[in-house]
């Protein structure tokens, strides 16, 4: 369970952005979390209130956009859901693939005044 540390890291990055851009108030933080990333959205949501308590972000909302793990088959170029198909191409059964999304773990945007 390292989500609390991750949330602190998020707040640090947002805080830098707020200072650099002289923003007044952050209404919402939007995170992009890939299915294969190390962070579990539910845990991130659960520890967010603890991380922002007594900070200027206490009333800031958190939104998490989950990014599915999508692969392209190296043999038949079919695009498929990696987790759903357990890493095996559903059309040709090859296990050779290139990952095109799913490792994302970033701050997408913030809504602020």
């Amino acid at each position, binding site marked *: 369970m390292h989500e609390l540390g991750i949330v602190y*890291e998020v707040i640090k*990055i*947002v805080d830098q952005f707020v200072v650099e851009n002289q923003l*007044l108030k952050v209404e919402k933080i939007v995170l992009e979390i890939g299915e294969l990333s190390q962070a579990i959205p539910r845990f991130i949501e659960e520890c967010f209130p603890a991380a922002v308590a007594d900070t200027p972000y206490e009333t800031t909302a958190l939104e998490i956009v989950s990014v599915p793990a999508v692969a392209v088959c190296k043999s038949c170029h079919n695009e498929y859901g990696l987790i759903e198909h357990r890493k095996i191409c559903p059309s040709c059964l090859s296990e050779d693939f290139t990952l095109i999304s799913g490792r994302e773990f970033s*701050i997408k945007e913030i809504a602020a005044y």
Partner: protein
Amino acid sequence: MDELKIFSIKKGIQEDNVKIANITRSELKEKEVFMINVMSSPGSGKTSTLVRTIEKLKGEMGIGVIEADVDSDVDARSVQNAGAKAVQMHTGGLCHLDATMAKAGIDALEVDGLDLVFLENIGNLICTAGYDTGAMKDIAILSVPEGDDKPLKYPMMFERVDALIINKIDVMPYFDFNMTVLEERVRKLNKDIKIFPLSAKTGEGMDAWIDWIKTEMKGGKSNESNA
């Protein structure tokens, strides 16, 4: 109040960690110190493997070990007795070392004059795999009693490391551990990985691992792009 605006940030949450890790790597390179990040589950034999390794290499080079544990200094004392310089970091409830903590360990150890530093990460096969520490090489230790199915359960660790030690091969007869199956499973995730079956207890298989360290130290490629 001004109008509510959307600001696109698009910044990876681990970008700063990678930046710090890259700085650490270049500082270590300048000092000609080679750092290896050692990861595994608790009880796989990280410390005993390091003790054996130190005994084999201490006549040729200065070795340091950064121990990271929730509590106690038992590991630091073991590697010190074997002939290495050591620092013990107490990491509280943390489940992995990141680049900032690794840097604190390097500073505490005072690496000037050392040739080889082992960063003994926290015993954890999951979280440790996600963080670049600034080491030149990452290795994992899997011990025979843990089973040959671990690459299936924790693929990220096996995908990421440069080398894998299979420890405790002396107890192989008592476990259903299939080395061929293990190797197939690991190579499927990471085809270039080096695998060293050994026993830190009996010393069997240690030489190939020691040779790998020496070769990598001489000009082994670095981890620069490792995220």
